[in-house]
């Protein structure tokens, strides 16, 4: 395991948590936006590909670095009866994306805390490396 690999893991952590934050914010932002006709309700979701941490830590083989992507998944919609709304359908229902606020807020907080932990990790790693350089020095 080399220091570069540890830094890479921390960088991935930062990327991943920032994307989770972005996904949660995007979902909260669209929670009260009406879905137009023919549109499907979508929720932002973060996926990680090739996340083989063991390989990265053990060998740091080139190209094995995990990557995080922000994608969208189909979600349920909730209907609100509001015949006066110009976006209402034949039954007088207006459709919104069914965003679970509790889940999104939990994601928001846990992403924020994990991000802080990753920043602390990078700082500690840098301090340790600087200390290691002083071994045997004058």
């Amino acid at each position, binding site marked *: 395991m080399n*220091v*570069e690999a540890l*830094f890479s893991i*921390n*960088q991935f952590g*930062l*990327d991943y948590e*920032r*994307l989770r934050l*972005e996904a949660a914010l*995007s979902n909260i932002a669209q929670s009260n936006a009406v879905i137009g006709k023919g549109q499907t309700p979508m929720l*932002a979701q973060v996926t990680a590909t090739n996340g083989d941490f063991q390989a990265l830590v053990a060998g740091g083989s*080139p*190209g094995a670095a995990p*990557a*995080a*992507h*922000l994608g969208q998944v189909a979600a349920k919609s909730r209907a609100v009866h509001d015949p006066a709304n110009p976006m209402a359908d034949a039954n007088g229902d207006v459709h919104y994306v069914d965003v679970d606020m509790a889940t999104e807020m939990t994601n928001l907080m846990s992403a924020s805390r994990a991000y802080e932990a990753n920043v602390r990790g*990078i700082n500690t790693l*840098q301090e340790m*490396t*600087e200390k290691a*350089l002083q071994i045997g*020095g004058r």
Partner: protein
Amino acid sequence: MALVSDVTADLVGRMLDVQKLRAEAAAGNIARANVPGYIPQEVDFRSQVASLQQDLQQPEALAADLAEMRVDGSMLKPEATSSLLGASVNLDNEVSTLTIADTQYETLIESLNRHFGLMTLAITGRE
């Protein structure tokens, strides 16, 4: 051919160039963070480092590799980013890249110092 061929110093010097290029790329990305349509660049040196690592046991092959290696803009490639805003500069990513390049640079300088310290010791018999 140099009078005194020192593969270690050559190798460390070339890696210093790489780390400097990394820091320059990150600094350039931060500087252009708000330019519309700018695609952030990063340094891709994994393939070069892999070929250098293969030749670590053979000083001649390593010296030839080092002589061929070009540390310049050709090592830059577009950064793979994912965001709701499309290809954009992630400041945290750039700053952490700067931190990594800085740490690596310090490590290389320290190893170079100790290498030359050993040579001084060998030449003069004192540090």
